[in-house]
């Protein structure tokens, strides 16, 4: 091996010498300086490039000039980097901390809550917040059921607190605490909202049969009010936390027995004709930024929810969930209805579905990404924005025929 490499060197040198000897000095047929500059900048057409390569392979003068142009353009780069480099470097460092801090705090809080040490403190803080819900950080709540709920929520809470048992089951931690960082992908049934507005239903209850739970508007309104303006970086940072929560949600643990409060909530919901909260459905989580957007800006006239393996369900008239045929088996993560007839669903592996007949049929829409789509915000029949798990936004204004990608900041 050593011998062969030792013998390679002279051959290589010979190759260089012969190559040099084969090159012509260059002359009148040499291309213009502009063509060489365009060659270096790679702005020539394919034909021009091939023809110029043919010339360059045999012309010492032009080859040398091209080499010099590359060296010159490269020599200028460090100067640019010196000016520009510190800004992104600082930004990245800052964002790293900004990303790490909420995740760390969330983990500590979750841990404390899980061990039961933090609950009394949170309970104390809960009441004043409900009495005077702070204004949303990003946009005001739209007029409608949520406003009404905001007005009636304190009364409902006080009423419910009377029947609330002092101790909550440990398994509740994920379900009740998780909404502060994550949201279930249900478009809440109108009946649920109405029931809450009328003081019937209340906070989200843990799914008693399987993994999921429903985040009701009260949870969302509180989150919307309390959530700070969240950047895309924050969304990405919370992925680890979300995964943690998802794993807890999806863990096949035995469901805790319903508490008095839960039973009361179920009774109230049933009385109001709401869809059952313990539907055997798996839900997924979205990151905080989409949550804020959705909670404050998206109004949904009907109850819809999505779940695993292409599950799309519509709230039925008698409080049941009616499963729709989605035609896909990927996990679906979000749904939006800009109008009663047109709806959008997004999910894992770049799944986008669209209905134009109020959800009776869903058509798969082609999108130039295979990333998980965690959020859809639809403002009109033909316009929608979807957000990938890594924070990119894709926008369509023609019903999904074409998409514009906005990279992550």
């Amino acid at each position, binding site marked *: 091996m050593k011998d062969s490499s*030792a*013998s*390679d*060197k*002279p*051959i*290589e*040198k*010979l*190759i*260089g*010498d*012969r*190559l*040099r*000897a*084969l*090159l012509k000095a260059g002359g009148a047929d040499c291309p*213009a*300086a*502009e*063509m*060489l*500059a*365009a*060659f*270096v*900048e*790679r*702005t*020539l*057409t394919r*034909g*021009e490039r091939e023809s110029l*390569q*043919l010339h*360059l*392979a*045999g012309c*010492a*003068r032009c*080859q*040398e*000039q*091209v*080499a*010099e*142009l*590359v*060296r*010159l*353009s*490269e*020599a*200028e780069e460090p100067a640019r980097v010196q000016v520009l480099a510190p800004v992104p470097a600082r930004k990245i460092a800052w964002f790293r901390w900004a990303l790490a801090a909420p995740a760390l705090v969330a983990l500590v809080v979750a841990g404390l809550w899980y061990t039961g040490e933090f609950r009394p403190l949170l309970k104390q803080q809960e009441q004043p917040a409900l009495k005077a819900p702070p204004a949303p950080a990003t946009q005001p709540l739209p007029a409608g059921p949520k406003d009404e709920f905001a007005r009636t929520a304190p009364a409902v809470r006080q009423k419910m607190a009377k029947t609330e048992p002092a101790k909550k089951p440990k398994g509740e931690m994920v379900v009740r605490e998780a909404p502060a960082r994550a949201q279930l992908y249900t478009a809440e049934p109108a009946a649920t909202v109405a029931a809450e507005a009328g003081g019937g239903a209340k906070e989200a209850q843990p799914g008693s049969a399987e993994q999921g739970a429903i985040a009701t508007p009260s949870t969302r309104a509180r989150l919307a009010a309390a959530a700070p303006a969240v950047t895309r970086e924050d969304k990405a940072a919370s992925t680890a936390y979300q995964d943690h929560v998802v794993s807890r949600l999806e863990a096949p643990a035995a469901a805790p027995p319903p508490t008095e409060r839960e039973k009361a909530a179920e009774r109230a919901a049933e009385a109001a004709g709401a869809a059952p909260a313990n539907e055997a459905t798996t839900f997924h989580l979205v990151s905080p930024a989409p949550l804020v957007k959705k909670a404050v800006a998206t109004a949904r006239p009907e109850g819809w929810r999505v779940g695993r393996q292409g599950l799309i369900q519509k709230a039925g008239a008698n409080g049941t969930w009616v499963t729709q045929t989605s035609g896909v088996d990927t996990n679906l993560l979000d749904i939006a209805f800009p109008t009663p007839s047109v709806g959008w669903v997004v999910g894992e592996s770049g799944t986008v579905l669209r209905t134009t007949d109020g959800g009776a049929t869903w058509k798969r829409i082609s999108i130039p990404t295979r990333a998980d789509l965690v959020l859809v915000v639809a403002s009109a029949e033909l316009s929608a924005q979807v957000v990938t798990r890594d924070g990119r936004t894709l926008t369509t204004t023609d019903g999904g025929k074409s998409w514009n990608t906005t990279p992550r900041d």
Partner: protein
Amino acid sequence: MAAAGLSGMADLDFDHFFTDHRVRLEALHRASGAARWSVSLEDFARVAWQGIAAAAAANPREVPQLLSTLRAEDLALAWGCAQGSERAWDAFCSEYRGVLYEAARAIVHEEAQARELADSLLTELYGVDSSAAVRSSRCIYFHGRSSLKTWLHAVVYRKFVDEYRRQRRLEPLPESPGDAAPAANSVSEADDQRYDACLSEAVETCLRDLPAEEKLLLGYSYVQQLTLKQMGRLTGEHEATISRHLESLRKKLQKRIAGYLRNVKKLSAYDVGRCLDFASRGVAVELDKALKSK
């Protein structure tokens, strides 16, 4: 005007070009801010046409692509300078004088000479020529196919080569290492000469047979001594890809050389080995000679 110096046929082509792509040309003209330098749409289109005429003639369907890669703003500024717009020249100087000095310094490596080179080029770009009756700017050779900056780099390097190498025309050229005499201390001079001839022929033949693209890549590496990164900029490939490509090229070439020596020159495996050995000794002697001469 250089733009007006086109032949009748080219004018006819230009008319078609101007008519067919007028909307796009108007948009480019507007976006380039050519009005600032008093460059009319037709002049703008003519200069652009000069730059792309050859490619458009070869493949007329490429015209939209060619126009999309046009550096319209640079073109307008350069043509404004060429037309004698003082405002354009002021803008050019404020933006590109430094670029010229930097490039000249990088090429010449000597401050005074670099300044002289850059100043001399600036006068040519402005169009001062005592021997000519009218002012003629070198900017007329820029048609927006590349950025003005890279074009200026190319022009300054060309000028350097023209000016400074011309001064050394009468100086003897250094001996090409490829033409170096065989090792003086070889055991058998006859053998060495034979091996040298065989090896040179083999290498030359194999190099000639290579496609232009591969030959150029070897040229970048062995003759121009470009780094992998620099080669990557030229080919649009990643350094790792270039490295792999070069490695496979070397192997292919060595295999072909050995094959040529065996099959065409009818050398035995022993002689092929001695050929390589000869090359090795030859290089050692050259290095020794070079060191002694210094």
